[in-house]
């Protein structure tokens, strides 16, 4: 009942396989993740200046920036990284300051990543940078 007869996209040959829907879904996720990592690696290798765009600094972003620092340290060539905080949903300066205090103050005290940080609040149209 649970099995589906479909042409598996991830298979090298286009034969029909009897696979469960769960397996197929998992394979799809794995496939997309592998391709994502590959493209990420490609951009890292090609790019001399790397712009990392974040909204609110989530755990995923923090992890990614940490990974990037380690990769840059290990890399023999020259790489420059700029983190851009593009606050999409922040419209006033007060909101921005509040968000900044809550999210990033402790982060900067411990000096997690020593990159140039550039804040950009979109709808109100004001910019200011912090190093």
């Amino acid at each position, binding site marked *: 009942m649970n099995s589906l007869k479909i042409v598996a996209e991830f298979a090298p040959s286009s034969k029909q396989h009897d696979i469960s829907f769960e397996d197929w879904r998992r394979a799809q996720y794995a496939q997309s993740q592998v*391709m*994502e990592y590959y493209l990420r690696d490609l951009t890292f290798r090609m790019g001399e200046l790397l712009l990392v*765009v*974040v909204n609110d600094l989530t755990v995923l972003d923090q992890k*990614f920036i940490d990974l990037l620092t380690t990769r840059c340290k290990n890399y023999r060539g020259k790489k420059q990284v700029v983190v851009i905080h593009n606050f999409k949903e922040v419209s006033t300066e007060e909101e921005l300051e509040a968000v900044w205090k809550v999210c990033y103050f402790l982060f900067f005290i411990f000096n997690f990543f020593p990159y140039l940080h550039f804040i950009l609040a979109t709808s109100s149209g004001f910019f200011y940078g912090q190093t």
Partner: protein
Amino acid sequence: MWKKKAVLQAEALKLQQEAINKRRDLEELMRKLNEQEMMLKREYDSKTENNIMRMTEGKDPVTYDMILRATNFQNLSNQEVGWTLDIFSEETRDWFIGEVRKMHKEEELLRAAAENGNKNVQFGTFHVNQEEEDDEDFVLSDSGPVEKARSSTRNSRSASMDQSQNFSIVGVMGYYDKGKSWLLNKLMDTSFPSSKRLATDGISFCMTKGPSSTKWLILDTAGFGSPVSCKFLSNLLLSISEFKSSLQSFFYFLYSSLSLSSLSLFSLSLSFLSLSLSLFSLSLFSLSFLSLSLSFLSLSLLSLSLSLFSLSLFSLSFLSLSLSLSLSLSLSLFSSPIKLVSPFI
């Protein structure tokens, strides 16, 4: 004393009432102000959004020089799900061909090194580091004979690149729906398609000129963690939507062909009326004919006259029917497209 107290109490009550009224007015004013502020904010947001949309969607959608789409890791040759590379400009194409040639030379050097020395060398393989796997990420291993040989060639390559390459490469990375293309449009004065409805494909290359005639090769990437697009399901959904749209268009055509202007409607109603009249006259004629055939002498004259009258009525009604029908048909077919909003759209 009592009177004064009563007067004072009345004044105090009046003052209290006034204060309450004023407070109520103030509250109403505040509410109205808040509403107005919200309205203005919404208007401003919509206007800015519209501006952004206009800025990005009004221009030519093919703004990239080269787009590398990669959805499948193994089935490369498949045109639908494999890798595709669309090149739109000659400059980027030349650069890319040069890079590929360099990579080929590098690979040949590596192969020669592997054949001479270590035989356990694999090309183009990825190794997952256990430490990185815990962080849900994986990198190329930076150790082994291949990597050493690669680093030596890379150094030589970078030296040659500095001489030939007269632009710097900017890579943009980040998670899905963070406004990467929008930001590039703002910073680099480009016009990449960016909106909530659009998503960047794979790695999109674009050559632009920065300040003081410096050249940038921008790599606009698809965001990490973008939703997995299922080819099978998306195709199914697409076919459903196409079927729906075709049905819609069919119904719209029917509706537009049937929906008539006032004149044609009038003629149609006239035709219906004449039809009913003709039917009535026919029945009358048949009745009169029947009575004539039965030869009721007393009724013969009357029936004759009635039959004649009914015949004339029938002929008239038939004529009017044909005329009105032809008019309505011609109006519906040759009239200008009727401005009616279809209920299906």
